[in-house]
């Protein structure tokens, strides 16, 4: 029998109606049926506080300082401002735990995590938070260390919270997607695991996020949300299976392929002949993915795969939304050396960020403040026309170094030609 305080929750009860699964019903089950008295009581008072928020339209949690032995971050501390009324949930901290790349689990592992969490926590888990962590929601300062020690022993580590390298995210990827042009697993783990110290001990100006998408569909929203976005792509010709093109036209009609594929190409690089042969001007294809998304059988990425890297994406705070900017148009990731270069570049960027960003400034904001060229010089990357939508349009600029800069360009071109 539950020993929880049962608070009246008339507003939350409204969220038990309707066909979508109700989190409130789940909370009540923990309060009323779970064998752990600790869980009954904690979730009982959590429901009370949440109802109070619904009635007054205000939040009542405040932060603090809580971590585990040896780390400085990874926990979101929450202390209730109305803890006197709801004492059993007055401490309700969240542990952020790093998932696998692509969020793969076995049911056995899930159950093991649930067992541990029932021993030490509230029984509430989210897969996953917006940064990509498994969120173990609701435990107190005394239990956190025990829970962490237990799951740390069988392979799980905390993610980032605060001004640090954050937990990375990557898409379903090459494990199940024909559009994938990269090994998202390897990229994700090479990057974030190089910086475990920067994940666990927040010491950067502000957060730094890695996200990996296997193709330009960017299912991880990396360009919009990551300081360091890695996007799979290819640079040879896309593959066209002409027999499948004909099958597609047979199934959907000529009008459909004209209206939905040929005319929707952003660079008009496709033509369909009178005999239903599809031709692609690959030198003008920008790898947008639209035609591949529509004709999954007939069209595929090429064989010369690699990644594009965009730096500086972030959400609103403080200067407004920023997309990442192309810093590396194409990089092969085939060999151990390729991965070393990738990780080294990430380290250079994080070092430059740590030294040059203002407090609470994201990488993209720093680049906005100092200019892309200063950033590129700081991390020793040459300018490249792929980095801009268009060149400068205002003549108010001092350019007395033009001849030297032009010479650098021709030298680089000559090097490329001889390579």
């Amino acid at each position: 029998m539950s020993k929880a305080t049962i608070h009246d929750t008339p507003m939350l009860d409204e969220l038990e109606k309707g066909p979508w699964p109700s989190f409130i019903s789940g909370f009540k089950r923990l309060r009323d049926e779970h064998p752990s008295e600790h869980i009954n009581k904690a979730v009982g008072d959590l429901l009370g506080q949440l109802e109070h928020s619904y009635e007054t339209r205000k939040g009542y949690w405040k932060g603090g300082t809580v971590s585990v032995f040896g780390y400085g971050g990874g926990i979101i501390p929450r202390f209730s401002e109305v803890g006197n009324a709801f004492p059993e949930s007055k401490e309700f901290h969240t542990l952020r735990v790093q998932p696998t790349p692509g969020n793969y689990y076995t049911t056995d592992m899930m159950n093991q995590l649930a067992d541990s969490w029932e021993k030490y926590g509230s029984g509430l888990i989210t897969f996953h938070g917006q940064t990509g962590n498994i969120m173990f929601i609701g435990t107190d300062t005394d239990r956190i260390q025990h829970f962490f020690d237990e799951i740390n022993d069988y392979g799980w580590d905390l993610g980032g919270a605060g001004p640090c390298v954050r937990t990375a995210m990557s898409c379903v990827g090459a494990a199940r997607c024909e559009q994938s042009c990269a090994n998202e697993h390897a990229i994700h783990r090479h990057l974030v695991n190089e910086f475990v110290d920067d994940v666990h001990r927040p010491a950067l100006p502000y957060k730094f996020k890695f996200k990996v998408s296997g193709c330009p569909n960017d299912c991880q929203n990396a360009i919009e949300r990551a300081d360091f976005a890695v996007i799979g792509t290819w640079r040879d010709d896309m593959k066209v299976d002409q027999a499948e093109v004909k099958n597609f036209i047979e199934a959907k009609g000529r009008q459909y392929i004209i209206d939905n594929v040929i005319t929707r190409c952003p660079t008009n690089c496709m033509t369909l002949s009178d005999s239903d042969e599809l031709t692609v001007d690959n030198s003008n294809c920008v790898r947008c993915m639209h035609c591949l998304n529509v004709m999954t059988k007939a069209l595929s990425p090429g064989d010369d795969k690699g990644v594009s890297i965009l730096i500086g994406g972030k959400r609103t705070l403080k200067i407004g939304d920023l997309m990442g900017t192309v810093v590396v148009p194409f990089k092969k990731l085939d060999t151990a050396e390729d991965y070393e270069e990738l990780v080294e570049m990430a380290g250079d960027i994080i070092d430059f960020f740590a030294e040059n960003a203002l407090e609470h400034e994201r990488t993209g904001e720093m680049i906005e403040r100092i200019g892309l060229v200063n950033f590129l010089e700081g991390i020793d990357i040459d300018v490249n026309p792929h980095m801009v939508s268009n060149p400068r349009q205002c003549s108010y600029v001092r350019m007395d170094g033009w001849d030297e800069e032009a010479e650098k360009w021709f030298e680089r071109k000559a090097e490329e030609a001889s390579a």
Partner: protein
Amino acid sequence: MALEDMRSPIESGCPDGFQYMHPTMRKNFGQWKYHEHPRPGVLLHVAHSGDQIWTVKAGTQRILDVYSLRKLTEIGDKFADGYIRFTLRSNIEYMVTDEAKVEPMIKALEDAGFIVGGTANSVAMMSHTQGWLHCDIPGTDASGVVKAMMDELIDEFKQCNMPNRVHITTSCCQINCGGQGDIAINVQHTKPPKINHDLVANVCERPTVVARCPVAAIRPAMVNGKPSLEVDEKKCICCGACFPPCPPMQINDPENSKLAIWVGGNHSNARSKPTFQKLVAAGVPNNPPRWPEATAIVKRILKEYKEGAKDWERINDWIDRIGWPRFFEVTGLPFTKYHIDNWRGARNSLNASTHIRF
């Protein structure tokens, strides 16, 4: 725990995912040929080797109690060889090689109250944040808003017959942790913070707070003989950026913290470059427990998009084609002076042409 019992953490970082991956996916890693969408909520991927894998996707309440989690793992044990994954939007996915298991698994999921769908051109599960349940600065709830809206949008989740996929996001403050979406429902404060001057000096690092303001509206001041901060309310944009570093600058207001609705955020490079969302409606009441006013606007936008957009057009593609005047006309939403941007780069959003649709 006593200090002598403490042990150093094993800094293992991000674990290897291959150990938890279905053997058929391990075997065909990077070797997939194409996919099909046999029915809503189900994907079929075929590898160059000829191997097939069927994915069944289901929506959940996202904040899972261990009972719901164990129900999901039980279904995975019974039908999916014990392998699962989660999507970016907190849907669960089961992968099986045997087509015969697909229909019984769908039935088991639906019998347990989970919603099969969310694939292809659906209104996907809304991505959301923590809200009143766990955030320290929320203007509204997150899970509750999403539960109430998904109740109303469930058919679009299950049927997958929109012109293209629709990603909806919610955020409980203007930092917008929920992220960019085809439709975003975000808290929008409308009044400057209310300052408890008795607490500022003890709680807030004042230079940090001054630096946090995007429009330099905060300055140090002595108030009632105590060091505090004051806000130039003519400059203040009511963004709430000062509230996290200085909780005595309370921005959340039960009446004046409203919701705003934004459309056209698109993460994909398909067709056009990725786009940020644009403001379409504001002043929407923050009305728990079911937020009917916000839901009504979202449904109105979705109805017009579904009727008006061509195949494969995301919401931003659709509006690009029909133009913003027509968008406001068909949705019945008012166009106000607040829609005209005055933030940095605003000039790029003005129409400097005679390209006008009549």
